[in-house]
């Protein structure tokens, strides 16, 4: 479904991605783990067209998208819930969700999707008129995921949904990611520092170091891998 071929991305003169190859197949949950500054967020921003690659190819269902603008990529169904949640602070919960459906015109189905996300996260329904900037961290993350769902993603890109959240809320959010993947058959590409939880959720994983992929395997094998254990799982 999504394929990266030898992708190289730069910030000015600094090379952030040093020739990335990876693949996400339809229906999968794939996770990308790695330390701070490894290039995980850059990978997602490159896929979403915010930081276009200098060379290499990003293929979505076989067609190259690395030269497309962000809004064209969004239109194809590649939707990102970015790092730090990036809720529009001065918009209400409702307006944030409407922004998620920005490119859609099917008003009736959008209404159903509101019900769907409020069903996933009843907390958001209670706070629909509240400004996004006044929500708690966990609520903001729920809103960020819901906003992405409002775009009807074919491939959902999640960047560190567990960042800064209490363990109980992390478990809840990961459970919902599993649910989204299973019930609406949404493919998920999950970037995480919380390697343990991410690998338990995902089917396959990639390990990133210094802008390069150093390891890839099924999630179960990665969880058992000695190098991964000592570097990322703290065992």
């Amino acid at each position, binding site marked *: 479904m999504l394929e990266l071929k030898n992708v190289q991305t730069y910030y000015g003169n600094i090379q952030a991605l040093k020739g990335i190859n990876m693949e996400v197949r339809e229906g999968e949950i794939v996770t990308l783990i790695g330390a701070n500054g490894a290039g995980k967020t850059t990978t997602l921003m490159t896929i979403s067209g*915010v930081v276009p690659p200098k060379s290499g190819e990003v293929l979505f269902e076989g067609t190259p998208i690395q030269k497309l603008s962000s809004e064209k990529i969004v239109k194809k169904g590649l939707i990102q819930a970015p790092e730090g949640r990036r809720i*529009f602070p001065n918009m209400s919960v409702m307006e944030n969700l409407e922004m998620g459906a920005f490119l859609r015109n099917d008003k009736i189905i959008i209404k159903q999707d509101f019900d769907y996300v409020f069903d996933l996260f009843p907390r958001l329904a209670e706070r629909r008129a509240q400004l996004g900037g006044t929500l708690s961290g966990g609520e903001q993350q729920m809103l960020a995921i819901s906003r992405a769902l409002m775009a009807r993603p074919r491939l959902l890109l999640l960047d560190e949904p567990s960042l800064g959240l209490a363990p109980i809320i992390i478990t809840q959010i990961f459970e919902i990611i599993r649910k989204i993947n299973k019930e609406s058959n949404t493919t998920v590409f999950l970037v995480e520092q919380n390697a343990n939880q991410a690998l338990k959720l995902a089917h396959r994983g990639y390990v990133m170091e210094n802008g390069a992929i150093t390891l890839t395997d099924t999630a179960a094998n990665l969880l058992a891998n000695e190098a991964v254990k000592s570097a990322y799982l703290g065992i």
Partner: protein
Amino acid sequence: MDWAYFVELLCSGLVRGSIYALIALGYTMVYGIIQLINFAHGEIYMIGAFVALIVSGALTIYGFSGVSILVLAALIAAVYAAAYGITLERIAYRPLRGAPRLSPLISAIGASLFLQNYVLLAQTPDFLPFPALIPDFEFMEPIAHIVGSPELVILVVTTLTMIGLTVLIKHTKIGKAMRATQQDMIMARLTGVNVDRVISVTFVIGSVLAAIGGVLVGSYIGQINFYIGFMVGVKAFTAAVLGGIGNIPGAVIGALVLGLTEAFAAGYVSSAYEDVFAFGLLVLILIVRPAGILGKAVKQKV
């Protein structure tokens, strides 16, 4: 106390304030989205006035009269101003997006000087008489010594324009895209907003408002030249900062406060000192509330 005089000053202050508001909105909207102070915005206002002058001259020759000239001249001036606004953004600002903040600022000053001198050469350095496009209404006659028809038209037009703008920003799709872009440009892109188009639309709206201001003021004051955009631009910018730059209701409040201050200073002290009061007020408010009257209210939890 002479109440009639007070009311007269109040009206004159509101008229000034609403004109400043029309122009201040252009500054504050552009600043809100791309953090740029568009110093050439006053020139768009001036160009709007010039286009209206030329159009109204032509229409008079073709036998149009009264209000129809005003409306047509304002429409055509708005279209021209919008075209200038878009072109300005494309040529002077877009290539510098992502550059250090000083670069587009210098580019803005350059664009301002360029447009002034372009009109100076293409038209004339002299003041040109501007026809009184706003007719005197009969029903206004009893109170004409306090509020004239032109003042009334200016107040009504600016009020309607601002209501329209509020509706546009609060409830339309493009308005939501503008607010999203203002709050987080990258996230706006990730929801599918074409940010370049939003920026262009912002320049169009700002320019149209400035052109409306240009037509109204030209017709009210009765003369224009290539330099009128400068002082009005500085005052409107002051109003935007007073209200809290980037904040739309703030720009309107700042403009009204500024206009009233000027009018009362001119009326009760001396018109020679109106600018002293205007900028003195700016200094005072910036000392007490550095973010402006309606500076950032919502705090974001992390």
